[in-house]
Structures are given as structure tokens and as C-alpha cells.
């Protein structure tokens, strides 16, 4: 089911037209609040919960900067009790996909939640985004124009340059602007709930499958696929094997920011913060004696590969881990390479469908013969 409406915004900016749309949703009372990127004190962007339509001007859904994966915020917001009034969350595709995984992991309740996804041409690392804002450039216009003209911006985050989902596979409402003419954007309702929210915005049931947009997205995906391939090859060349791997991890200071910012890493108490890994001095001594000398604190390699073992099946490749790393460890590149292979093992694509069980929660009787030894 796809119902769609084209919204015209002649003579206005896309960003302003979207702000008008948020205002309309709040004015009509179909949602009581919007969780969306807003301009914070000082000019940077972070998720904010907007309830007053008069403050729509502070929303910045197009800003090509992503400080954290908002699915993580939704987990915090709904875990004690879901909202009693309807809230709409405006998410990038990687955030919407993380949300699907967290719903499957029973970490987000969808009660009273409307998910609005919005096309994402990519985001910049903090330093680059700051530079653009401070030098007075308009990062939104620059990036959207660039991408719509078919050019790729080398300054984008590694994960964005390899992202296969500039459009979310799932949402209640999907907002599209990639590959469309400058004067209009697209609002699609993909669920019954979404259709209710957008009812009355304009003529419905129009054919919203635009050849031009589809062709554009195909080309963009091909480019991103090539980016992904480059990334995987680079990992195999530069980061593979004990020595290269350990040298890549050598700057890690065990701050565990990658874990904190990962939307999928959800355990209330992580193994690595539990008494299991609180070693008494003599165990450190034993470790050192077994090899002559040992790096302190221990368990750096173990932390990263265990995180992979726990989450590679659900990793949506948002790249927040690498963005959060203060020490320049190529966490995303390692994670991407690993999760691509692990997800292929189970032919599982995270974030696509609610019905599909996550691989670690299920099994098949006939599979993975190569993993076990044959009988003797």
C-alpha cells in the first residue's frame, strides 16, 4: 500500500517547506510532538522533542550532520513507558533501520509512535560540518544540489559513502526529495497509521512511482555499492591479520564510546562493565607472566570482537561507532566488513522487515554444516 502526496513549495526552500509540514502536523493535532533534529544553542544539531509549532524554525531535519542514532533516543524514551500521546519521530534511513532491529529486540515500543523517515544524501563528520557552518556555507543546499546532480562528496562520513539506503525501506510516512524537481517533495504513507496522519493534506492515491526518482536512486545506489566494495577491499588489504588488526586497535583507550553510541548495543549492563571482567591484580599478573608482558588495561581486542559477535547480525552500518571514537580507531570499517559477511551467512538484512526474526533468536535444523566437525 502506497498512498502519496506531492507537496509544492514554489519560491521557498525545501527546509522551510518541511518546517511548514511539521507545523501542520502539530496544528492539526494528529501528533502532539515531533522528535527531530533541531538547532541547539551554539548552532550544532541534535535531536529535540518539539511540541510548540511556533518553534518549528529551530528544526533542522536536512542538516547533514548526525551526532547520534536517534533510535537510541527512542529506546530511552519508550523503555519505561511509551508516550500516552502520539509522537512522530523524524528519522534518517539508518535510524529507521536501527529502530526496526530494536523493536525486534524488544527495546522500543511502537505504541503511539509514528515513524517518519526522510531521504538522506549523507552526513559529514563533526569537524567538517562545523567548518561549513562557521564559514557561513549552507551545507544543506550544497549537499542536496551536489547529490541531485549525481556527484559524490568525498568529505562525507565513511559509512555514508558506503550506504545502500538513502531511502528508508520502512516507515509509517516517508518523505522523499532525492531525484525530484526542485519545486516539490513527496510524502508517502506506507502503513495504515501513516495514511491516517497524512489524510487531508492533498489529493491522495496518486501514482507516486516516479521514473525519474527511481532511476536516480538506482544510480546513487550503484555508486554507494562501489563505495562499499572499496571499503571492504581496504579492510582486507590494510586491517586483516593479527598484526594489522592489533596495530589498528593500538590507539584504543577502552573508553567504550563506540558501545555507548551504537544503537544496537542495548544491554543494560554490559559484560565488560560486569564483575566477570573485573580482574584482581593476580590475574593481570598471570596474564603478563603467560606472555612476558601485557598491555594494560587488558581486553581491548576481546572487547571489539565480542561486540562484533553480539551485534554483527543487526548492525545497520550507521557508523556512529567510528564517529564516537576519540582516538581514530577504524571501528566502522572493521564492523562493516564483519557484519557484511555475518549477515550474508544468514541471508539476513537488518532493518528491513519486522516479521523477519533476528538470526541469533532462531535457527534451522539444516544449515551451517561447515561450522561443525563431521562424526567419527
Amino acid at each position, binding site marked *: 500500500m502506497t498512498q502519496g502526496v506531492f507537496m509544492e513549495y514554489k519560491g521557498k526552500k525545501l527546509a522551510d517547506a518541511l518546517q511548514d509540514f511539521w507545523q501542520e502536523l502539530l496544528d492539526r493535532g494528529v501528533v502532539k510532538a515531533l522528535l527531530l533534529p533541531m538547532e541547539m544553542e551554539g548552532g550544532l544539531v541534535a535531536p529535540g522533542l518539539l511540541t510548540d509549532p511556533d518553534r518549528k524554525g529551530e528544526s533542522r531535519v536536512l542538516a547533514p550532520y548526525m551526532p547520534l542514532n536517534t533510535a537510541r533516543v527512542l529506546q530511552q524514551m519508550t523503555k519505561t513507558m511509551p508516550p500516552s500521546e502520539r509522537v512522530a519521530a523524524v528519522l534518517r534511513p539508518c535510524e529507521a533501520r536501527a529502530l526496526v532491529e530494536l523493536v525486534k529486540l524488544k527495546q522500543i515500543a511502537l505504541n503511539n509512535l509514528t515513524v517518519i523517515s526522510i531521504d538522506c544524501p549523507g552526513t559529514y563528520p563533526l569537524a567538517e560540518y562545523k567548518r561549513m557552518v562557521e564559514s557561513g556555507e549552507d551545507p544543506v543546499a550544497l549537499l542536496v544540489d551536489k547529490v541531485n546532480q549525481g556527484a559524490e562528496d568525498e568529505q562525507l562520513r565513511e559509512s555514508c559513502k558506503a550506504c545502500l539506503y538513502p531511502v528508508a525501506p520502512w516507515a509509517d510516512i516517508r518523505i522523499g526529495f532525492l531525484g525530484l524537481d526542485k519545486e516539490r517533495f513527496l510524502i508517502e504513507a506506507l502503513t495504515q497509521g501513516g495514511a491516517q496522519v497524512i489524510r487531508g493534506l492533498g489529493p491522495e492515491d496518486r501514482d507516486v512511482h516516479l521514473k525519474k526518482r527511481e532511476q536516480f536512486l538506482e544510480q546513487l545506489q550503484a555508486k554507494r555499492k562501489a563505495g562499499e566494495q572499496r571499503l571492504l577491499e581496504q579492510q582486507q588489504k590494510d586491517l586483516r591479520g*593479527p598484526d594489522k588488526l592489533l596495530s589498528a*586497535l593500538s590507539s584504543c583507550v577502552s573508553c567504550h564510546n563506540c558501545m555507548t553510541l551504537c544503537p544496537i548495543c542495548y544491554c543494560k549492563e554490559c559484560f565488560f562493565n560486569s564483575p566477570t571482567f573485573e580482574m584482581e591484580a593476580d590475574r593481570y599478573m598471570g596474564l603478563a607472566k603467560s606472555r612476558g608482558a601485557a598491555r594494560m588495561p587488558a581486553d581491548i581486542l576481546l572487547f571489539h*570482537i565480542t561486540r562484533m559477535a553480539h551485534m554483527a547480525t543487526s548492525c545497520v552500518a550507521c557508523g556512529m561507532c567510528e564517529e564516537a571514537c576519540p582516538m581514530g580507531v577504524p571501528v566502522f570499517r572493521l564492523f562493516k566488513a564483519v557484519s557484511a559477511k555475518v549477515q550474508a551467512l544468514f541471508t539476513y538484512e537488518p532493518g528491513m522487515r519486522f516479521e523477519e526474526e533476528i538470526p*541469533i533468536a532462531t535457527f534451522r535444523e539444516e544449515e551451517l554444516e561447515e561450522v561443525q566437525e563431521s562424526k567419527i
Partner: protein
Amino acid sequence: MKDEIKVIGFFCHWCTSTAADLAGTTRKEYPASIRPIRVMCTGTVDPVYVLDALVKGADAVWVGGCNLGECHYVNGNYKARRRIGIIKTILDVLGLDSERIYLTWISASEGPQFAEWAKRITEEVEKKGRNPLGDKLTT
């Protein structure tokens, strides 16, 4: 002593651990390289323990459970197989040796098979040599 290889075994209580006991009580000889840890089910073995053993320098990890379809907890061993599949894939991508992980299904009555596997794993790992992660500074 320092050159003897070490294999950490995670054996399920109901089958492989019992088979290991049986191998002992029937006086089947097997190498002393195996360090068995009894767990209630292979399905309870979190990847972190398998990885911890390898990162800290064990030369191999051997996970042993009931035959498929005969798990005491119905399907724990199928879940263990998925987890081991994930671990092995990760190690392959990272260029660490995934062949240092063994997954076998040995029932409670198969004492001789347990001794046979202990020998085979020890031989294979001896041929490979020590775990290269065993003398790194970083764990």
C-alpha cells in the same frame, strides 16, 4: 610445560561431559592438552568466553554438545551452532585463525569418540603450532 598446547573445552553436562567421564572410567587414554569446562548446555556458551580463551592464548577452543536433535534443552545446540558460525565468520574476516575452534556433537555413551576427538584435535593443533595471539601485548 611451556610448549605444551592448551585446548579449552566447553562441554555440555548431559552429553559430551558425560562422554569425557566415560572415556576416563573405561580407561581410554587421551592427551592432557584438553582443559574441560562443564557447562549445562552448549547453548549457554556466550561467544565472549570462546573469544576470551583464544585472545588470552589458548591454542584451540573445543565446544562439545549433544547430537543434533538430542539436546537436553530441545534446541540449545542448534543455537550454539549459529553462535559458533558467527564467531568463525568474524575471525575469518579479521584474518584470525577460525580453525582453532572445534564444534563436535558427542553423546553420553560415546566415550571412545571423545578420546578420539581429543587426540585428533591435539594433533591438528600441534601441527599448526602455538596460537599467534598468545604472545602479543594486546589482549
